[in-house]
């Protein structure tokens, strides 16, 4: 005989003010099979939970229904309390009478009626619940970090330094990401490459890190603790084992006029190249699209030059299959293309550049060896106008959000310029100066007070060329008057946006993204570095625009999550998995196709002599995520979902 306990929570006024809990408790007390029906102000409190436990022990309850808030809030709490009182936790169900009832209704009488229906339906379900045991699955202790920017490198190093294996996958020929392109970094003005390259080298040489550069993720299957990942190693056409990184081939390559991606088009590179001098690994790749040999079958100068016979024009892409326990996604960002602002002349006037290009101009390893020269004629600009929020906070043309770092890097640019071009003038058009962060406001004040950056609060309406100058027309809203400045160079603080393939890539690994393509965290406040897919974590600017300190902090946070996961040998999983009735299964394999997790296999049923008598579907409980897709598909109702069986759902519906 069922002995169900019903525990009705007031949730303070949240439920109590709308639902007549006393009436509800009395009505449930009358319902067949209910042994206890009580109300209380806060069942989730310690005394509340104690009273549930006491009731279970005293009445030998066979099931518990807590009529309260959404199961997302406290299902775990009450299931744990039940377990502590000796009741299988899966014999406890939550009837949601808050979000689905008291919060959404105005009439007390009707809300109470509805609360009765919801609770009764759960009582009927619980009567048919079965004891379930959590499923244990082994954890593969090897992490995959995708993206070799500062965030990815940091996460990889933290995990590896704790003694766990890491595979670090970067799709460019070298580690480094955007940080490798920066000149000096706010708020301390230390040289970006000087602090970055030691990290790159450390990651490449770490015995626990396997580095796969010029590689992309082909597919991800499986689930937390047990992912199978396939990586495509794109052909470099240079044998990574033979090449010594001498660079002779690069010097000799006759295709020299290729615009350098690393220098944002301000410099040139060869067809066989490394993105920058300190590349890690220091092994060149051949850019097939621009290589003379690949274009017309003649050249091979690099291969003739190479002393080590490392160049192989027939080298194919290769694949690496990896068993992985946890994934850190650190795929970073890109800067928006500013050509959508026709009025700023980006793309038309060579001396209108973006912030990242300015970084390359200011970088000692950049195309001008750190001298600020304008791209058109190499002259040193005497007046520079910076335009902030060129794309950010602009719902009509750009993006709605604040890119967070541009105020700071523009202040930095103004400073770097002042240090390099004595007597030069800077004007900065801004909307607000957002300099929250340790040492950040001080930093931007320094730009104004010591380096004489002239901040003008207002927008720029137009940039045009006149007598060899770039004329900038804007408005100074604080003085309430239009301004016109004759500049030698204009720098746009371009919006930070997601990677061009961010959405596609999210589908490959199975995580969510927002409308802009930034990856969604499981909870903005409480689980900011976890994606909503168990075992996949987010670090750096792929989640939202971030500066280096934030990216690094988030990366270390993902490492601690990964290490916590790896601290266990086995992982407990919810036993909500599908099972198949082999006697009734018709073997149509619809479920095999329908299952989004590839959890269903075909199984042969043999007789004693080994002859196949029947083929049926068989669910692998390790892979099944309990989504129920197969159950809805199966025509003959052979599949059923533990914890949500057809019987239970039917009773629930009929209980309404």
């Amino acid at each position, binding site marked *: 005989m069922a002995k169900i306990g019903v525990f009705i929570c007031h949730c303070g006024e949240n439920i109590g003010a709308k639902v007549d809990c006393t009436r509800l408790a009395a009505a449930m007390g009358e319902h067949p099979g209910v042994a206890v029906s009580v109300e209380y102000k806060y069942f989730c409190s310690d005394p509340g939970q104690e009273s549930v436990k006491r009731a279970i022990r005293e009445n030998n309850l066979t099931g518990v229904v807590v009529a309260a808030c959404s199961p997302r809030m406290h299902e775990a709490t009450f299931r744990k309390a039940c377990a502590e009182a000796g009741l299988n936790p899966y014999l406890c169900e939550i009837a949601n009478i808050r979000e689905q009832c008291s919060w959404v209704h105005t009439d007390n009488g009707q809300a109470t009626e509805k609360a009765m229906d919801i609770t009764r339906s759960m009582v009927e379900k619980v009567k048919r619940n079965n004891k379930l045991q959590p499923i244990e699955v082994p954890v593969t202790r090897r992490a995959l970090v995708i993206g070799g920017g500062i965030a990815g490198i940091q996460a990889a190093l933290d995990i590896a330094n704790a003694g766990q294996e890491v595979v670090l996958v970067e799709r460019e020929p070298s580690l480094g990401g955007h940080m490798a392109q920066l000149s000096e970094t706010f708020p301390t003005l230390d040289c970006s490459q000087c602090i970055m390259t030691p990290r790159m080298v450390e990651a490449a040489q770490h015995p626990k890190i396997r580095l796969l550069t010029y590689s992309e993720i082909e597919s991800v299957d499986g689930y937390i603790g047990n992912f199978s990942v396939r990586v495509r190693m794109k052909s470099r056409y240079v044998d990574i084992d033979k090449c010594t990184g001498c660079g002779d081939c690069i010097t000799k390559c006759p295709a020299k006029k290729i615009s350098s991606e690393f220098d944002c088009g301000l410099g040139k590179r060869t067809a066989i190249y490394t993105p920058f001098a300190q590349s890690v690994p220091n092994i060149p790749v051949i850019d097939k699209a621009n290589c003379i040999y690949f274009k017309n079958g003649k050249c091979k100068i690099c291969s003739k030059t190479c002393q080590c016979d490392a160049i192989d024009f027939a080298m194919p892409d290769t694949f690496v299959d990896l068993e992985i326990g946890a994934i850190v996604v650190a795929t970073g960002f890109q800067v928006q293309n500013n050509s959508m602002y026709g009025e700023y002349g980006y793309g038309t006037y060579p001396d209108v550049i973006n912030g990242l290009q300015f970084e390359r101009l200011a970088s000692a390893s950049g195309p001008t060896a750190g001298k600020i020269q304008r791209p058109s004629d190499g002259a040193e600009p005497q007046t520079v106008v910076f335009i902030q929020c060129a794309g950010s906070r602009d719902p009509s043309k750009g993006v709605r959000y604040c890119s967070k770092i541009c105020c700071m890097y523009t202040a930095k640019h103004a400073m770097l310029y002042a240090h390099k071009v004595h007597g030069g003038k800077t004007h900065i058009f801004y909307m607000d100066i957002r300099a929250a962060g340790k040492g950040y406001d001080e930093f931007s004040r320094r730009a104004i007070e010591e380096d004489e950056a002239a901040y003008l609060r207002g927008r720029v309406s137009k940039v045009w060329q006149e007598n060899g100058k770039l004329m900038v027309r804007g408005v100074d809203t604080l003085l309430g008057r239009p301004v016109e400045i004759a500049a030698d160079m204009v720098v746009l603080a371009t919006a930070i946006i997601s990677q061009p393939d961010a959405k596609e890539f999210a589908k490959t690994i199975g995580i969510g993204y927002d409308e802009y393509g930034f990856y969604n965290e499981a909870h903005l406040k409480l689980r900011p570095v976890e994606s909503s897919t168990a075992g996949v974590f987010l670090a750096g600017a792929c989640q939202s625009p971030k500066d280096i300190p934030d990216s690094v902090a988030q990366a270390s946070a993902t490492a601690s999550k990964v290490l916590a996961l790896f601290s266990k040998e086995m992982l407990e999983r919810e036993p909500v998995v599908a099972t198949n009735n082999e*006697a*009734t*299964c*018709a*073997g*149509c*394999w*619809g*479920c095999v*196709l*329908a299952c989004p997790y590839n959890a269903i296999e075909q199984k042969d049923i043999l007789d004693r002599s080994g002859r196949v008598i029947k*083929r049926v579907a068989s669910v692998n409980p390790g892979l099944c995520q309990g989504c129920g897709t197969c159950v809805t*598909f199966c*025509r*003959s*109702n*052979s599949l059923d979902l533990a914890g949500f069986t*057809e*019987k239970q759902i*039917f*009773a629930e519906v009929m209980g309404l």
Partner: protein
Amino acid sequence: MSIEEQYRTRAKELLSGGAVKMVIGYGKGTTPSRRRPLFITSPDDVERLMLDDACITNLSGYLVSEGLLSDEKRVAVFLRPEGIRAVNILAAESQLDAEQIVIFGFDVSGNEVQALKGIHVEEFSDVIRSIKEGAPEADEEELFEKIEKMSPQERFSFWQEEFAKCIKCYACRQACPMCYCRRCIVDSNQPQWINTSSHSLGNFEWNIVRAFHLSGRCVECGNCDRACPVNIPLRLINHRMAEEVLGAFDHFAGMSKTQEPVLASFKKDDSETFIL
């Protein structure tokens, strides 16, 4: 030589050479205008085979009779294009191995019987494609047009009236080649989703659920419709479902023996008009 004679000769050859163990065809029925399924295993019986415009029943369902194909021997069967499509679906749903099926294809227009060329399902793909692409028959049934024009309320009461007649004999299911489940949903009583007594709710549940189970699978052979002892126009429901999946997913049931079931698979460009 008439097609009937040609096919008799071919059946004789196949049976006597042992190429097939059985020929499933049509024989004399209870009245001169009716044909009944005939199962012959001896070359001496081929004279009993008949082929004329009265050969309507889709015989493909017999292929999945328990144990018939488990010895991996071949079976020949007389099929119209709908029957051939049904074999494709049965193969796609792993109910049979298409290699084992030898087809005697034919089609009827007016009272003319034509032979369809080919033996294996793959050889009929052009025939099937031309049916898919062919313009909807000019004389699409009057009743169908009428129902299409009804308001949802009118349509609902139309079907309510029709389904009220259902006596839950399950003849439709027995006659349908796609209803091969070892345990049909109506036979499952833990829980009893579909009420077995023949009152209007249970009747509605049964017929609607069956229509869903046939969507994207029904080849519109008409077996169910003809089997129904109380003349419920089941063909109309299935026809409507077939139109839906064709329109929404470009899915024409039984195009090939590897066609993926429409409700268990997805293409990236599937329309999502039903997701609000």
